[in-house]
């Protein structure tokens, strides 16, 4: 399970690492918006260049990011087949066993692949350069205006940070229970379906029982240390927006305008 790298924080020292998490989240949202504006080849060209440079500035390994696309390959091939069968517009490229392949089908698939790649690059960039705790603080701050409509921003952020904190603990626990049940003859690889279902139950039930117990103990510990949901608290980690952060947001907005213009021109 140590190979679980997608979405993991990588502690380098880069400009992007130093950005305010709030600015990073906003810029990420803006970039994601830009991706979905159909601005043709030139638009995607610009985006690929920008996103690639962001990844490089973050000191992330480009190969590592692209590699995280691999699990998507199957889906993309599947999509290509569907597109070939469904999309019948544009010039015919060539025929394969009396099946006409249209240019638009190929282009559609290509666009989707590019969008997926860009999305993964952008989100990886965010999670790899921002500590989970800072990310939750950022989300909390950005959700604050929604307090007016009774969105419990702080409680949501607390839940996310506790969930993040307990992921490694729960992975460890799962491994332990799997091994314990394997010692009792549970075999999830081979064996009949009925046995497999029994085997999965033997993992899930103990995991639930122990998670509930953990949750109860954690709640006691939090309460004993004076936590009370809804109460005002101070905050240890203070976030500070700098010039660069504002600049990045402005840049993100500009990018969207450029994309919109491009999409209208073409």
């Amino acid at each position, binding site marked *: 399970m*140590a190979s679980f790298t997608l979405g993991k924080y990588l502690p380098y020292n880069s400009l992007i690492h130093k950005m305010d998490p709030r600015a990073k989240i906003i810029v990420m949202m803006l970039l994601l918006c830009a991706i979905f504006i159909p601005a043709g080849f030139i638009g995607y060209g610009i985006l690929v260049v920008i996103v690639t440079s962001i990844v490089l500035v973050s000191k992330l390994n480009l190969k590592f990011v692209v590699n995280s696309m691999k699990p998507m390959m199957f889906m993309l091939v599947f999509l290509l087949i569907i597109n070939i069968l469904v999309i019948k517009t544009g010039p015919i490229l060539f025929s394969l066993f009396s099946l006409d392949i249209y240019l638009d089908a190929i282009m559609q698939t290509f666009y989707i692949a590019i969008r997926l790649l860009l999305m993964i690059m952008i989100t990886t960039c965010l999670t790899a350069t921002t500590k989970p705790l800072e990310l939750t603080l950022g989300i909390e701050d950005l959700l604050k205006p929604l307090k007016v409509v009774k969105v419990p921003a702080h409680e949501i952020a607390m839940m996310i940070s506790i969930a993040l904190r307990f992921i490694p603990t729960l992975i460890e626990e799962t491994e*332990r229970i799997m091994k314990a049940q394997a*010692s*009792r*003859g549970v075999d999830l690889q081979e064996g009949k379906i009925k*046995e497999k279902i029994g085997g999965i139950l033997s993992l899930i*039930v*103990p995991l639930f*029982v122990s998670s509930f117990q953990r949750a109860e103990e954690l709640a006691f510990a939090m309460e004993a240390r004076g936590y009370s949901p809804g109460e005002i608290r101070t905050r240890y980690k203070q976030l500070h927006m700098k010039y660069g952060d504002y600049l990045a947001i402005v840049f993100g907005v500009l990018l969207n305008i450029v994309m919109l213009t491009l999409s209208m021109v073409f």
Partner: protein
Amino acid sequence: MSIEFKKIDYTYSVNTPFQFVALKQIDLNIEMNKVTAIIGATGSGKSTLVQHLNGLILPTSGQLIVNDFVINANVKVRNLKSLRKNVGLVFQFPEYQLFEESIIKDIAFGPKNFGVPEDEANKIAKASLKLVGLDESYLEKSPLDLSGGQKRRVAIAGILAMEPDVLVLDEPTAGLDPQGAKQMMELFKKLNTVHNKTVLLVTHDMEHVYNYCDNVVVMKKGEVFLNSSVNTFFENTTYLDELNILAPNIIRLKNMLKNHNIDVSGCDDIHSICDKIVKELK
């Protein structure tokens, strides 16, 4: 019948940045039909070592022999399941592996996985529950309604129901009160003497090692530091000092008396030591 580790290495997460050598060149013979304690500091490789015994972890290099099973590193192992039936492994805090709605079903889960028919499995389950000291009135209860100590007994019964020749336990008394721990250790001793099981247990408690075990394997930084009889181990205080282990009370008392020129050699329980003291005082 034997348990032999031959030049076994084990490395976690090979070829990743997290690579970690847990066991180095383990050569070890475990005496059958004895109670063997495995001790050592946290992170010394005890848990990794015992998980080899039923094939949960396969060696990176070397050879492991458990009864008729031979496991060679990098060779696909056949019949892992029957090895697991032969070596019952009880993890730390085993009460967390209970999941069925009734105790009898939970105990019968193991044998059924190994192909024992239902009514036969239920029969074994009843016998196993009795073996761990709980009566038949518990059979239909939910395992989740029991006290901590009772849950642990039921979990151990679930392993015993597989009728293994070798029973391996990882810190079986952790978190129990002194009385519960004592009863637990007496159970393992009984399983060894009455039911002829080979028992291996990972422990930190030197009183338990001294009072209930025959042999001791000391792990240190992924290597076997020592494999000897319990008496030899505790007689030699240099080992204890080197390992930073506080000797069991009896040994400490004997050493203190010896330093004051009261001869208590050859005494290994409280009664015989007191007899010597009485002689000295009268």
